[in-house]
């Protein structure tokens, strides 16, 4: 894994939270583990800052993820995620190459994997308060393009990778029979790199651009629909406010839909 995370507090917290169900799961006789499997789709966009926050662009990603995990007695859960994603890096500009390049080539496919966890903390009345954590890695293969408008054709080879960490509490209302609305506020860290290599005749250069997501606190609203104890649908919308480079307040948005079975 070559994505530089800088071991930020958010990343460490995310890892800790994701691994914590293993420690938090009570070892009580007579209680059994449950397995969960499912699939989900999601879309999110993030505003990115790069070149020491001198420039910004937007990344949007559509993901299809399979989930497989375990629910421990008393509720903590841990799931591994794996799937495929399309990440659109349009707007990244590479000025360290011999011929500067403005990436407008659209989405690039990549493998996505990660983990997520949910740890119940309190259950006051009909409310559930839990801690949630999620980490996702997108590891794309390199893609090649031709640069044909010059007097000698050239090639460009690009590879984008990103990591997203979300950690925070959520509050779920359990007062309804088959559905439960919830809200959460969370730390939302996003880091990535895009490496572009250019070769045109004697001209050759590589530029590795490090990006970070603008805005680190997100909020989401969602609903969990449970027509039976073994089946769960979850729909969620999220927003990450951020201050753009011009100083204005903007929002990055995301939506997701998940279906899971427990057995």
């Amino acid at each position, binding site marked *: 894994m070559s994505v530089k995370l800088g071991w930020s507090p958010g990343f460490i917290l995310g890892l800790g939270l994701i691994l914590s169900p293993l420690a938090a799961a009570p070892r009580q006789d007579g209680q059994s583990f449950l397995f969960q499997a499912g699939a989900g789709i999601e879309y999110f966009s993030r505003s990115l800052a790069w070149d020491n926050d001198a420039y910004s662009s937007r990344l949007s990603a559509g993901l299809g993820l399979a989930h497989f995990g375990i629910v421990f007695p008393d509720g903590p859960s841990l799931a591994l995620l794996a799937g495929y994603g399309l990440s659109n890096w349009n707007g990244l*500009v*590479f*000025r*360290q190459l*011999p*011929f*500067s*390049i*403005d*990436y*407008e*080539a*659209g989405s690039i496919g990549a493998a996505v994997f990660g983990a997520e966890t949910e740890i119940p903390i309190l259950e006051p009345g009909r409310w559930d308060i839990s801690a949630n954590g999620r980490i996702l890695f997108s590891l794309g293969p390199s*893609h*090649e*393009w*031709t*640069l*044909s*408008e*010059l*007097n*000698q054709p050239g090639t*460009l080879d690009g590879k984008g990778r990103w990591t997203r960490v979300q950690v925070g509490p959520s509050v779920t209302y359990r007062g309804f029979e088959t559905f439960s609305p919830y809200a959460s506020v969370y730390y939302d860290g996003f880091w990535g790199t895009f490496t572009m290599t250019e070769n*045109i*005749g*004697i*001209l050759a250069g590589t530029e590795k651009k490090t990006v970070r997501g603008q805005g680190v606190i997100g909020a989401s609203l969602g609903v969990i629909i449970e027509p039976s104890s073994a089946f769960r649908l979850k729909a969620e919308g999220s927003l990450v406010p951020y201050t753009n480079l011009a100083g204005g307040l903007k929002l990055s948005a995301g939506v997701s839909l998940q279906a899971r079975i427990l057995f």
Partner: protein
Amino acid sequence: MTHRLKVFRIPVFAVMAASFLAAGDGAARAPLSFPSILSASAAAPETAFVPGQVLIKFRPGVRGIGRMMAFAAYNLRPIRRVPGLDVYAVRLLSGADVRKAAEELDLDPDILYAEPNFICRADSTPNDLFFKYQYALANTGQAIGDVPGSPQGKAEADIKATQAWEETTGDDSVTIAILDSGVDLTHPDLAAKLAGTGRDFVNSDDDATDDYYHGTAVAGIAAAATDNNEGIAGVAWNAKILPVKVLDATGAGTADQVANGILWAVSQGAQVINLSLGFDESSQTLLSAVRYAHEQGCIIVASVGNTGGAVQYPAAYNEYVLAVAATDYNDEVLPTSNQGEQVDVAAPGADILTTVPTWFLGPSALPYALVSGTSMAAPHVSGLAALLKSRKSWLTPDEIMAIIELSADDVNLATLAGKDVSLGYGRINMEKALVPRPLGEDIP
């Protein structure tokens, strides 16, 4: 042993439009009398559009499913919408011809119109009074000169300077050495740009004042003070000019003077050396000086000559020098521009409005004139080299030469495709050399 000095004349023929520039002459129309100086602006190239994208507007009544069926039928992927106009930006299949696709979509009865998604770019237009006459930098099809009967330029037959200036106008850490007849050190459009009084290798002193006119003309093209509400714009707005006098008052000089000038310019930290001069024969001394400068990281630009014959030296030192031919306001080769395999690129060199010494046209005239020749083409390239060096200081001379060559427009493609003996790779294109190239969906 005899010692033979190689004497040459500068390869330029000048066309001085003194009447055009005569201030206060009732018969002449002084440029200052025109009120619309600041409106000069280069339009975006007509052919510039986003690769693989077209804009579509459906006819009224064609909604949801109808639109989706149209997208599916033509393999279109909607990527954006202009809600106020109900226009979609859609992505075509990889490799599709955008114009052809737009024409085909236009024929669909459900589609009101389809067109390429044209690219505009904010142009940086300087406020210099005579900028509108500088067709070489931004050719809008304007008249070349301001007297009745002036020829008309062809729009876009220029080096795309205004587009490139959006990316960079250079900085004063880059110096262009003008090895020529000196520079008018008091010229209002040059004085503030000079990196000192230079060096005079003709009279062996430290005063490189121009006593001919040629060096002042070359310096103005490369890096006149720009956006200063006065005179002309230079290609490299912020680059410094280092005057090095190697030509005398008749425009002649010797190989040892030029070689000395090159070495001195290198010692003064010049990153770009402009040599709008030429010898008919090769000189070991000159070659050694040029090679040394190249090895020291200098980009050397030289004019190919105006005799219609072979490429002159030092332009012919292909390995070390960017050899520049001349085009006119129609992107056609200047008939007198020398030819040969060594020609690398071309730049406008016909009727170029530039600076001349304040004494040159007399006290009542403004110190600007129209000058022609490959000598005037070369400083356009030197200016571009200076901008590239400003933007990407890590590039080597070979890399900067390659960028300038590979980004040139093959303007004589119809008759001499590819690199040719007339214009080399073609007329330089500052936009392609400097502005980030859009990387579209050009996946093999």
